[in-house]
């Protein structure tokens, strides 16, 4: 596979605007206008978001993102979740050129974890106070929804922990292989005890880009539709973006707008996180542009906070960005430090070893002027130091979004208890 040369140049030819140009003249006037808009809690348009990406200096973006963050999350707190990443299988048939984790069926390093191995990892996680199992695998041709339903039900029968599992592409993979609808697959997973769905596999929600970087994976429309159906089944999910590969800047903004539109419709997304493509050691390393630099992460994550005015939370990605930049991102709109990731195979296979202890995370949050608090998958605070009411406590309480089925939306659960 080779990239058509114009697209492969897309990101490399982008150039950050000169910071000083944003301090005076027409650019400053427009930035001031947009800052006023955001300070007033108003939405910005796709064109305005593009203007920010093209012209704003980092400090202005940080201020605007912080303003939006304070509208959505006025408390001086940064949350994180004690969780474990568990990859039951690394077998995958989508062959994404940016992934260092997967193995093809029959490869000597291919694996499917046994129940005993999984239970041992879950037991450790629960013992450490874990709230969530982030479980994702490859697209295994034989490990399908019945296997996953059984796994989730087995875990729920033995442990008190949420299964934050699968991803839109995996769910779509099940439906396709089992020749049944997304709704039916999701209904079975919900019945088995699935508690929430991660936002993985979004990469860039633009077909031109997906055809280059992940041609065998779910399309943009299907990715969004799986999340729509997950939300309609009563579950919450999160959203992500992997930037810095072959996308153009307007395509980045298009990705955010697509997410915002679906969120307007369903309200089911809890949070958004972005990261840059980590091309070191991946199968198509030579075909990707050089890894974007940290300033671009701050730019993209801040713009996401400003654009995604209907998302409650923004998660930083210390696994990909490192602890130092993750702390700085708290001044660029992020209000959540993500998971403790007691095990993270996918990214560490690509050369990221930024795993850190809870103590380090808490110290960094405090040093940034915020109170660290542990949460569950639905952003309810579950910290023993917290004196308020924990809500939502479970997936049913979290199903307050407009798309959730009426049966789950008990009147008492519609609004947060005072």
């Amino acid at each position, binding site marked *: 596979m080779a990239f058509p040369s114009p697209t492969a140049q897309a990101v490399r030819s982008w*150039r*950050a*605007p000169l910071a000083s140009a944003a301090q005076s003249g027409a650019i400053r006037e427009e930035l*001031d206008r947009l800052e006023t808009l955001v300070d007033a809690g108003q939405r910005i348009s796709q064109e305005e978001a593009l203007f920010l990406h093209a012209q704003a200096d980092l*400090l202005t973006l940080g201020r605007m993102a912080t303003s939006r963050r304070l509208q959505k999350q006025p408390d001086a707190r940064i949350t994180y979740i004690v969780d474990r990443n568990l990859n039951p299988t690394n077998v995958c048939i989508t062959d994404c050129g940016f992934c260092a984790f997967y193995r093809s069926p029959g490869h000597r390093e291919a694996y499917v974890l046994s129940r005993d191995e999984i239970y041992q990892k879950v037991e450790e996680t629960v013992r450490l106070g874990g709230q969530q199992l982030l479980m994702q695998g490859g697209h295994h041709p034989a490990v399908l929804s019945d296997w996953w339903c059984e796994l989730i039900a087995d875990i729920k029968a033995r442990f008190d922990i949420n299964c934050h599992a699968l991803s839109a592409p995996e769910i779509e993979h099940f439906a396709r292989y089992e020749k049944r609808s997304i709704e039916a697959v999701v209904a079975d997973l919900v019945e088995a005890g699935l508690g929430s769905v991660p936002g993985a596999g979004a990469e860039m929600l633009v077909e031109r880009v997906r055809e280059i970087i992940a041609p065998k994976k779910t399309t943009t429309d299907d990715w969004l539709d799986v999340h729509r159906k997950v939300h309609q089944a009563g579950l919450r999910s999160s959203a992500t973006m992997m930037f810095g590969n072959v996308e153009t800047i307007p395509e980045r903004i298009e990705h955010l707008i697509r997410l915002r539109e679906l969120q307007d419709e369903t309200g089911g997304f809890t949070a958004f996180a972005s990261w840059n493509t980590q091309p070191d050691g991946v199968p198509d390393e030579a075909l990707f542009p050089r890894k974007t*630099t940290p*300033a671009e992460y701050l730019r993209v994550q801040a713009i996401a906070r400003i654009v995604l005015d209907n998302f409650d939370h923004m998660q930083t990605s210390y696994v990909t960005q*490192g602890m130092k*930049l993750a702390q700085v991102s708290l001044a660029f709109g992020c209000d959540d430090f993500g998971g403790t990731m007691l095990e993270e195979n996918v990214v560490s296979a690509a050369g990221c070893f930024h795993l850190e202890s809870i103590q380090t995370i808490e110290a*960094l949050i405090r040093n940034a002027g915020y109170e660290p608090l542990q949460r569950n998958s639905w952003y309810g605070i579950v910290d023993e130091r917290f004196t308020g009411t924990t809500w939502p406590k479970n997936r049913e309480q979290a199903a307050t979004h407009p798309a959730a089925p009426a049966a789950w939306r008990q009147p008492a659960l519609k609004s947060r208890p005072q």
Partner: protein
Amino acid sequence: MKQSSDRLQSRCERAGLAAIHAKVMAGERLSEADGLALYRNPDLHAVGALANYVREAKHGDHTYFNVNQHINYTNVCNKLCRFCSFQRLPGQEGAYVMRPEEVAQKIREQLHEPVTEVHVVGGVYPRLPYSYYIDILQAIKRERPSIHIKAFTMVELMQIARLAKKPLAEVLPELQAAGLDSCPGGGAEVFAKRVHDEGYHVKNTGEEWLEAAKTVHQAGLRSNCTMLHGHIETIEERVDHLNRLRLLQDETGGFQTYIPLSFHNEGNEWSHLPGPTAMDELREIAVGRLMLDNIEHIKAYWIMLGIPIAQTALSFGANDVDGTVVEEKIYHEAGATTPQAVERDELIRWIRDAGRIPVERDTLYRVLWAEDEVPA
């Protein structure tokens, strides 16, 4: 001087920095109390925006780097500083001293690289004779006559003068004749006596450091200045340090650049201290920019900060990132994990990504190469 936006003003007013904002706009000197207020203010964005205002007023988007080579000629030292991971006692495992010929060899190894500066610092090893220092300067110039030698911190210079049994003012011309072109800013640590006595009591005092720097400037040599932050010092002691640098600069004008140095905690006697966080480092850059109104450049030393924070610091007051360093040892022994040398084009790329214009300089900030100012 460019105009401040109304937004910066209202932002500073909301952050309780109206008086400081007014002084900055008027080009007035900030007081020590202002310095404390800047350290204590919870709104890092506002502090950063003020520092950025000063940075852009002085330098626009220009961000300087150079291509340099580090030579740490010995790690043997008798100063026993508690924050240091580099020092070894004579005979201790890993102790080394480079012979002048080895120093020459280091220079020869880089002749194919466009290196314009060699940064030479080492431990204070009392068994080295005065002639050794002359010899290594001459050896470097013999191998590469065009290179700028930025050598010896004030601590080493005081030792050299002791060995020469002459006042520093008389030693400096001899070192200059042997090839010394300017001096680095290390060894200042924190001037306060309390911190000195607790952390590095064998080393010269703050007063002695400042006196040596004054002598250096009077000899016609430029130097840099530093502060090692994030260990046991208080913010009052930091403000005092900045103020003393500023007062000497009023007198001599010899400092080119201020470089806040982050305490790193691996392999030294202060391993129990966590060291500064990324946010602390950004604030240190910003406060330095605002307090040191008479020092032209503020450096975000990337090899110590790491690229993410060095890059971000370019929006918080810094206008220099140091160079494509070859063979840095001191911070790497203390746990720095930055790559030892970044390619020149990589350095240029991340300066650009921060919205700045990369400018290659020599040690005295003469422009060697500057990118087109208008991006495509």
